[in-house]
Structure formats: structure tokens, C-alpha cells
């Protein structure tokens, strides 16, 4: 089948602003949008820039706007979006070239959440594992699935309006540790998130939840963090 793909193009060495270019390629309805981009890059225009690595929805490098909405290109089939496809970079991060955006601010916010286990207590008597019940593990199971693709943060109108907002992905990261029964850094993280650029900027537009390729219920996670802040309880 014939697939028409309109792609946002921007070359910092030549352009002062972005523009669109349209390509027609032969493909299959079961192709992924990533395959179509590879076809364009491999056969028509080698200068096209986009990120990809695993091509299987694991590494989180190919989030982009496909027909006006954030998706992973490697998890989006042509048959689900139609043969006329528009591909643009995600919003709210600087465009470096074509579909490649500057992810530094995103990862800076991630780091602010202290994304590691904090536990200063002595090890258990056997000196080995800090055990956890299946119920306690289930409490934060969903937020462990984040692949840091930024589809959520860059779909959030609060983040578009204010790049200082930590964003939904950072809060999901914080959630993963705050509700981990082995972790002792919850109050520190809740304090960070109670700052003006924290959860107060979430106005429940739900764009993040709709965009997440891992089906994480992000707004729920943010709601739980907000509630923990108000009640001081982690149950």
C-alpha cells in the first residue's frame, strides 16, 4: 500500500524555523510508523534525524507526535493511524534536529526526584535482602514500568506553559520510591514535590495518562502523591 508521511523538518545549520516535507513510500498496513521513518531515511532522505534504539517499546527513545498525539513510533501501527501520517517532534522541549529534541531538561527533572533507593537502616540480621511482601511490592508496581520516554511530560499543558514544572514522568519516578516499603526517602521527595514546580502544577488534563505507552495510570499516581502530601500517610 501507498503511505504518505508528512514529517516536520528542521536543520539548525540551514533553517531558522521548521517546515514539513511529504514523502510517499510503499509499505504495509502492519508496518509500524518507525518502519516508515526508516524507509524514508534509508531510501529517500538520509538526512532525516530521529531517535530509536530497541524498536520494541522498551528503551523509550522514539516518542513523537503522530497525527497530533504523542506515541512511540515503534508501537504504532500504520493500520491504527491510517495511510496519511503526520509526524512531529514532541512539544515543550527544544528541537535539535527534525524529530530529535533536547532531553536534558527532562532528565534533570528525573534526577531531582532522587531516583534511587534511600535506606540508611542497618541490613537485616542475615545481612542480605530487605524483604518485602507481595502486597507491598504491588503498591508501586505500575510506576516501575516507566521507560522514561517523555510522552507524558511533553503532552502536559502545564509543562508546555512552564518548563520548570517537574512533569508527570518525574512524579511517576518519585511515586515508585515514595510507596516502596523499603525506602526511607519519602518525606524528602514529598518535600521536593511540594515546591511550586511540583504536583501543584498538575491540573488533571489526563493527557499524560492517555499518552503513556506503558499504560501507567499517571494521573492516579500523581493523585496518590498529592494525597500523601496532604495526609502524611503512605497507605
Amino acid at each position, binding site marked *: 500500500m501507498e503511505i504518505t508521511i508528512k514529517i516536520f523538518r*528542521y536543520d*539548525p*545549520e540551514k533553517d531558522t*524555523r*521548521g517546515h514539513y516535507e511529504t514523502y510517499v513510500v510503499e509499505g504495509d498496513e502492519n508496518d509500524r510508523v518507525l518502519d516508515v521513518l526508516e524507509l524514508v531515511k534509508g531510501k529517500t532522505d538520509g538526512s532525516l534525524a530521529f531517535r530509536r534504539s530497541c524498536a520494541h517499546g522498551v528503551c523509550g527513545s522514539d516518542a513523537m*507526535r503522530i*497525527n*497530533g*498525539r504523542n506515541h512511540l513510533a515503534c508501537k504504532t501501527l500504520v493500520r491504527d493511524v491510517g495511510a496519511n501520517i503526520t509526524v512531529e517532534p514532541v*512539544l*515543550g*522541549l*527544544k*528541537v*535539535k*534536529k527534525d524529530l530529535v529534541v*533536547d532531553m536534558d*531538561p527532562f532528565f534533570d527533572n528525573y534526577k531531582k526526584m532522587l531516583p534511587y533507593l534511600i535506606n540508611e537502616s542497618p541490613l537485616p540480621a542475615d545481612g542480605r535482602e530487605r524483604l518485602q511482601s507481595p502486597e507491598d511490592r504491588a503498591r508501586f508496581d505500575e510506576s516501575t514500568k516507566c521507560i522514561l520516554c517523555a510522552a507524558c511530560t511533553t*503532552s502536559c*499543558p502545564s509543562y*508546555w*506553559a512552564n*518548563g520548570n514544572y517537574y512533569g508527570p514522568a518525574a512524579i511517576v519516578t518519585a511515586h515508585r520510591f515514595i510507596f516502596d516499603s523499603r525506602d526511607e526517602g519519602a518525606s524528602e521527595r514529598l518535600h521536593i514535590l511540594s515546591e511550586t514546580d511540583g504536583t501543584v502544577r498538575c*491540573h*488533571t*488534563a*489526563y*493527557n499524560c*495518562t*492517555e499518552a503513556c505507552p506503558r499504560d501507567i*495510570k499517571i*494521573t*492516579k499516581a500523581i*493523585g*496518590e502523591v*498529592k*494525597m500523601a502530601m496532604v495526609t502524611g500517610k503512605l497507605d
Partner: protein
Amino acid sequence: MGLNRNVSLMTALRYKGQGPFLTYILHRIGGLGMAIFITVHLLASFLSGKGGHFINAIYENWVFQIFIFFCVLFHAINGLRITILDLFPKLIPYHRQAITIEWVAFLAIYGFAVFTIIRTGLGG
């Protein structure tokens, strides 16, 4: 080098965020509509003469009343839905169902109000 991160209002509105995003946008339109209405209303009461009469004539017009009632009612019902889900995060996964219920309640009340406003406005 790179394009800046600014997202224009038009680009933001074109984002296909689906049903929840629509309520988010309408909530803001409702809030803005009410803020403008109250400001103009206050202004009108301080302005005497033609200016005041002109402003009064606008918001006493039934077309404007349909608009302002939309703003107030949608903002109230949507705000109620947001508050309930904020207080009970466990319900958040059912936000789509909550939004459906919200639309049903809104359309029923708003439909009745619009019918009444038009009938009165047309002198029925």
C-alpha cells in the same frame, strides 16, 4: 542551537488529547468567561449613562445568557468531578466514566436552561 520550547496556544489546542483534554479546555474557557463577565458587570455598575446601558444590554441579551450559563454550569460540574477524583485517587482510573456522567448531567441541566432562556428571550 535549536528551536525554542515555546508552545503556541494554537499548537496546544490542536493536540489530540481526547475527551479529558476537551473538558480541561472548556473548564478554562468557562473560568475565563466568568471572570470577564464579573469584571464587565462591576464596570457597568460604576459607569453611568450610555456606557453602562450598553454593557447592561449585552449581558441581558439571551444569547449572552446562554453563553454565561454554559460557563458557570460547565465550570461547576467539571469542578465537582475534579474535586471528587482529587479526594479519592482510587477512582481516577474511572475518569472516562466520570466524564461521561458529567456530560449527561451537564447536557440535561443545560438543555433545560437553554430551552427556558430561549423561550423567555423570544417572549414565549
